[in-house]
């Protein structure tokens, strides 16, 4: 029996030894918890790659305040509870200077209580409004919110004289938060939600829900709120059923993968997205042009794969932090936090960022471009 206890003890001490903190305190430590695996991996992976790439680039250019950057990344496997544990590890054990990430809103909200208590600057890469509303002292975010996406779509619908919308949302965190914001801001925009259907992120067929919508008189447009492969299946099903209503997607599908998976069915689909995805189509006068073309090229060169807006969020987060550290002239957490909050006119891949004490995202609707898929390519609508 004692042997058993000894084994258990040995296991415990093994754990303690293998994870003992490193001594080097010199580099600036960038902590990050991303969903590099699991259902949200297609978001988390480009984010992780981007951070890795740009930390190297910053270091190659001499670092920040003469100090090197050191990246500590953990993969939460798209599990919010794990994100919470890893955030603790970053704060208490790795003693990082800033935390970037939280790929999903769930993971982000799981880390928020820790960073607030640990008083450490935190820039989230997740979408939902709840992250920055109400404003939390140490919490910032770079992606556009789902509410902005809804508002941008409503504005475009109005221009086309459409008011009756059928909503199809995914039962993922992204889809449900999007559904909530869409319904909440519809009335103000004068849009009527005539159908409210959902589908699961791993569903293989959504024709049942769409058949219901097809049979509904008076529907003028369809909005699909989801991420990854789900919206592609909905798009194909819409084409299969011969539904010809104007079709909107959310910013959650703003990657080449969506067009590839949906094929011809994606023709004519409109969605709000960051300028990054149409980098080449931007007029030279656009203030974002150099930033987005630079990032898109660097990413494509390094990883031989198409750029997505998700990696761009990670780029923005790292650069906003770097910019704040430069202005603060220190990595002192409180001073850097104040500097992040004072970010003005920062041009990122997501738009021009102007933070305020009560706006920890700093983007307005102009950051979103309305895109339409034509001939298998993203094109600017306005």
């Amino acid at each position, binding site marked *: 029996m004692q042997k058993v206890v000894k084994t258990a003890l040995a296991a415990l001490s093994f754990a303690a030894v293998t994870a003992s903190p490193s001594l080097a305190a010199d580099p600036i430590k960038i902590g990050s918890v991303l969903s590099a695996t699991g259902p949200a991996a297609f978001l988390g992976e480009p984010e992780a790659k981007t951070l890795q790439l740009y930390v190297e680039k910053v270091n190659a250019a001499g670092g920040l305040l003469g100090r090197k950057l050191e990246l500590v990344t953990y993969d939460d496997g798209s599990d919010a509870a794990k994100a*919470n544990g890893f955030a603790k590890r970053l704060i208490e054990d790795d003693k990082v200077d800033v935390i970037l990430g939280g790929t999903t809103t769930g993971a982000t909200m799981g880390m928020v209580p820790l960073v607030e208590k640990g008083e450490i600057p935190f820039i989230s890469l997740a979408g939902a409004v709840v992250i920055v509303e109400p404003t939390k002292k140490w919490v910032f975010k770079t992606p556009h919110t789902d509410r902005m996406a809804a508002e941008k779509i409503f504005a475009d619908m109005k221009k086309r004289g459409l008011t009756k919308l059928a909503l199809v949302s995914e039962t993922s965190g992204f889809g449900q938060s999007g559904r909530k914001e869409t319904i909440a801001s519809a009335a103000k925009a004068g849009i009527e939600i005539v159908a409210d259907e959902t589908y699961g992120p791993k569903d293989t067929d959504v024709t049942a829900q769409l058949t219901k919508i097809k049979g509904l008189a008076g529907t003028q447009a369809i909005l699909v709120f989801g991420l990854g492969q789900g919206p592609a299946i909905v798009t194909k099903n819409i084409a299969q059923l011969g539904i010809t209503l104007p079709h909107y997607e959310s910013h959650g599908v703003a990657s080449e993968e969506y067009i590839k998976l949906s094929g011809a069915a994606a023709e004519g689909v409109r969605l709000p997205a960051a300028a990054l995805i149409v980098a080449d189509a931007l007029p030279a006068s656009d203030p974002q042009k150099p930033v987005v073309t630079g990032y898109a090229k660097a990413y494509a060169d390094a990883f031989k794969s198409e750029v997505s807006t998700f990696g761009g969020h990670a780029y923005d987060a790292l650069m906003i932090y770097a910019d704040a550290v430069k202005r603060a002239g220190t990595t002192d957490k409180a001073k850097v936090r104040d500097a992040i909050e004072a970010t003005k006119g920062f041009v990122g891949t997501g738009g021009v960022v102007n933070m305020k004490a009560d706006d920890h995202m700093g983007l307005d609707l102009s950051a979103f471009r309305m895109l339409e898929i034509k001939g298998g390519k993203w094109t600017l609508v306005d």
Partner: protein
Amino acid sequence: MSEASTPPTIGRSSPEITAAALATAPGFRSRHLPVIVLAVVLAALPTVLPNAYYYDVAIRILANAVLAIALNLLIGYCGQISLGHAGFFGLGAYGSAILTTHRDWTAPMALLASAAIVGVVAWVVARVILRLKGHYLAMATLGLGIIVTIVLTNEASLTGGPDGMSVGDMKLFGLRLTGEKVWYPVFAILLVFAVVLAANLVESPAGRALRALHGSEVAARVVGIDTASFKTRVFVLSAVVAAVMGSLTAHYLGFITPQVASFHKSVELVTMVVVGGMASIWGSVFGAALLSLLPDLLARFEGFETVIFGVILVATMIFLPRGMVPSLARLVRREGR
């Protein structure tokens, strides 16, 4: 399906090894010493834990160990598999979260209420599904767990939906439980309590009989043991323990998502029991420690962690089929001879 095509019954392994781990040897020393050692180790551990992160790791191990012990009573001793135990954990967690947030209940009241609700649910379920055997029981419990997850995901007005909800601090006798250093002793005491309770249950007449006749329930019934009611009680007990741990974990983490009730989490719990050793209380403690540590240990093996995790599971089951603790204990005893 004919007589003989019934798949192999759970727990073909003979119980003598596992029993040796704790119970069969007579006398005070061998029965109580391990528990005392555990208590001393847990009491001394804070002196070597460098910071809150390690406390957090320790707490996750302790919580999982309690869950695994309770589940092992069901799997290892009653031969009933549950692939939906995280469902009960999730019900406890969300019960506490919802009652304290939306109904302004005090945390201890919410915990008791959730545990009671889960107890009733488990009792009703047990009456119905414990009649099922082997894979049918696996399917039924799996289904239950998934239904819980779907409800938690869909009832967003109460549960916050897939993005989860935050949970306030727990106050106990005027003391606010917050931070790893405060929670550590709570979970440590619970583990010692769980070990003692489980050992006593295993040693009770019904427990002994069931264990002795492990391979065959029919035989147990023939010699006059009411296996059905014993199994029902163990099922309810393990469900209630899961609910209580769910409540406490929710307050400790301060934030929960429907993933706490997921199939994945259920599988993780069963894995702790089986890898550590079925029908071995210390096996569960060890299995919980190992599986709680693995994600952290493998965190830097980008991409390959799933593969490594899978290889460990398969290799353990092939080379140490009784689970790590009982198999190793047997090896050690053989060498001692």
